[in-house]
């Protein structure tokens, strides 16, 4: 059976909607594989929707594609590869195909999966720009971690920046489960710098894609991939996005699919928050923390019970055994992210004292330094 599905995804010029229609008419891809050219043409004619008359012209091409022996040979090779690499095929007929995803208009017929996919996880998508600011990265990480603690599965795109932080935040919670939806095949990890994250996600959740294993991360794949991210989720959180960001495409898809769109407000002067701020203006739900998201799905009578697992993170960690200087420095950093020069100005300590103080805090995991030497409270 897997062979036929792979073959079906191989066909050029036949998208998920037509694939769906064809398999409905032919009652499965297997009979399509065996059908004669005449039958195939007849099937194809039936798939033409009203108002799509221009398509009639390309029916012979599509039929050629379906009848081609080359494609069948290719499918066999890919099947071997898929089996050897332990990649699972999940079709719409399978039990563990996500229900929410199945119901969107252009649901993929087949998903290639590394890891475990389950049917009805409670999913929230978190997306944002690749060049996230320190603020955005922190928000993504924290919200993902808290949602994970509340039992939510985090879906994102495994891109650099916000996406990566969302996955990492989720993985930071021990039982956190996260799903990455790729815009490339499973053999082509993109970005390559996330190859270790890829393995971790596959172990703790799933990495999925609608593309055959050897498909490159082509530019045009990503907007299509975005519909899957939003399609799997109950709601989508846009953390940080420029005016023309890809996350806005996901937000639009989410809206079209009837999903909730959440957005994190940002500095109005920051170009990386323009997209999210305009989403808010257009009616997206404002998010300050995980609680804001969870409240949307909390039934009135269920109030707190459903989310008892939610762990309230203490913003100010207990300060124990810190000497006076170090404590002072920590308080300053808690109040606002800052650098050595500002600290020197505010505390009046010498450079060497400060260097030792921030180092102790760093080593204890209370603060962390970002590129440029600015210190932030650890999140």
């Amino acid at each position: 059976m897997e062979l036929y599905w792979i073959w079906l995804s191989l066909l050029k010029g036949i998208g998920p909607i037509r694939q769906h229609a064809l398999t409905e008419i032919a009652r499965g891809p297997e009979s399509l594989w065996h059908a004669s050219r005449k039958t195939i043409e007849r099937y194809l004619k039936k798939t033409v929707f009203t108002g799509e008359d221009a398509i009639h012209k390309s029916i012979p091409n599509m039929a050629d594609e379906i009848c081609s022996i080359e494609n069948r040979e290719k499918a066999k090779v890919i099947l071997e590869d898929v089996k050897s690499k332990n990649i699972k095929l999940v079709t719409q007929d399978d039990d563990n195909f996500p229900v929410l995803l199945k119901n969107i208009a252009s649901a993929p017929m087949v998903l290639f999966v590394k890891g475990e996919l389950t049917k009805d996880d409670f999913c929230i998508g978190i997306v944002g720009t690749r060049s996230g600011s320190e603020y955005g990265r922190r928000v993504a990480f924290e919200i993902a971690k808290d949602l994970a603690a509340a039992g939510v599965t985090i879906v994102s795109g495994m891109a650099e920046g916000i996406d990566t932080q969302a996955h990492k935040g989720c993985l930071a919670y021990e039982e956190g489960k996260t799903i990455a939806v790729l815009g490339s095949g499973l053999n082509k990890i993109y970005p390559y710098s996330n190859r270790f994250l890829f393995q971790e996600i596959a172990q703790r959740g799933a990495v999925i894609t609608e593309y055959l294993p050897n498909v490159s991360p082509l530019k045009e794949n990503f907007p299509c991939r975005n519909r899957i991210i939003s399609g799997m989720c109950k709601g989508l959180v846009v953390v940080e996005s420029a005016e023309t960001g890809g996350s806005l495409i996901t937000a639009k898809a989410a809206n079209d699919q009837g999903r909730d769109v959440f957005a994190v407000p940002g500095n109005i002067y920051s170009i990386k928050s323009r997209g999210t701020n305009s989403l808010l203006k257009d009616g997206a739900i404002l998010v300050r923390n995980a609680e804001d998201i969870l409240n949307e799905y909390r039934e009135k009578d269920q109030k707190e019970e459903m989310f008892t697992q939610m762990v309230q993170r203490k913003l100010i960690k207990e300060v124990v055994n810190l000497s006076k200087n170090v404590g002072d420095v920590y308080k300053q950093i808690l109040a606002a992210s800052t650098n050595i020069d500002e600290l020197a100005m505010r505390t009046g300590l010498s450079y060497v004292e400060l260097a030792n103080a921030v180092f102790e805090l760093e080593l204890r995991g209370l603060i962390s330094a970002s590129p440029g030497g600015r210190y932030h409270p650890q999140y």
Partner: protein
Amino acid sequence: MFSLIKSCGFEGVNGYIIEIETDIKGGIPTFDIVGLGDMAVREAKERVRAAIRNSGLDFPTRHIVVNMAPAGVRKEGPMFDLPIAIGILSAWGQINREYILDDYIFVGELSLDGRVRPVKGILPMILSAREQNITKLVVPKDNLREACLVEDVDIYPVETLSEIVLHLNEVREIQVIRGDRCNRYFQDHDYLFDFAEVKGQLKAKRALEIAAAGAHNCMMVGSPGSGKTMLAKRLCTILPDISYEECVEITKIYSIAGLINNEMPFINSRPFRSPHHTSTTASVVGGGRYPKPGEVSLAHYGVLFLDEAPEFKKEVLDSLRQPIEDGKVTISRAISSVTFPAKPMIVMAANPCNCGKYFDDDTLCTCTPHEVRTYFRRISKPLLDRMDLQVEILSLEYDEINCKNVNVEKSEVIKKRVNKARKIQNDRYKGNGIFSNSELYPAMLEKYCKLTQDGEDILRRSFEKFKLSARAHDKILKVARTIADLEGSESIECSHITESIQYRSFEKNRILREI
């Protein structure tokens, strides 16, 4: 009729003695110079002929052959004009032949009217002459002050050819000047700028202090306008004092590069070189058909400052790796290979990304994560690894510019500490062939950079926490050693180690790690 005159040439930074033999015999009047001379040597014929005539002397209309021995070594430059002229005059009997010319070394270029012009490389030539126990040196008057840098030699400054002829014929003596080390020229410098002018930037200032004390290579990354260049320029004001031996070695390099004149007869402070980022490999490490020292040698014992380091051509940066490692540059040509000393402290400055805003306000930075990473990749990893201190610099805010709260130190104060620390190092490494902490070999680390139990503990914990590399380990120890020396502490304490780790910003603060 035959005469033998001694002169000097140089190869690399070392001089060597050349004997100039002249033979004059009857026959068709010709003038040949043999002995592997370059174009300038061959053209000496015309200058010598005209200079002799125009000095009122007689140029022999005979068959003249001049040989420069050793004949197998290539000779270059116009400094042989004077000895050739003296040789001819001596062989022709116009100079009192009983006078012992063997004691003298002649160097100088002639102009057509018989004046003597200054030449390059006087210092290495005189040093090599002194080694051969030849102490009477006839040099162009314009090279006098440079020549005086060498002790225990008699310098005869000459302005014209006739002057030296009269001297040799004992008609009119040239006043002898005794080389005297020029101690009087070693004076404190008044710099136009001072570290106190740099507001804020405590970390960078401290890093430069440590760099100066231990001759560590240093890299500054920061936004445009945050003060990287300003800081680097002020680095000369806190560099440790230069010794006479160092001064001579630096001046030798400048001398052969032709960068010395009577106004600036020698280099009496640590050089600060900042080549532009369009510089070629040959200009930075040295090269050319007749190899000349490059910027890295001209910055010997001083500072080589590479502003906008990622903008340099990749091969230029990579060519610096060998000199950093060996302390010298060897340039090989088909004919010979030349070695120039090159032990500068390298200071690099760079923007954090293409648009430069990545550090200050990452909400305004327009670079993609990929661009940020590739911007830095232009500096190869091995070169970055050789930067002992890595500092990030943020732009100042108004409050910091006007802050009265923070103590601002003057360059003098810092320089005193640096001098003290450098002295401790010189004493400690006496006989080891090194002068500063940055030169410590891995084997020596164990001996000189012993850690206390606490220090070791902290180092181990930070390695786990910040995932530092093995190379970072050695650098942290070396820098910690310098910090301890600045404090005058015998052992490396905890606080020295913790401060030292702060200067591994690239690894610690994930500039070069995944985004």
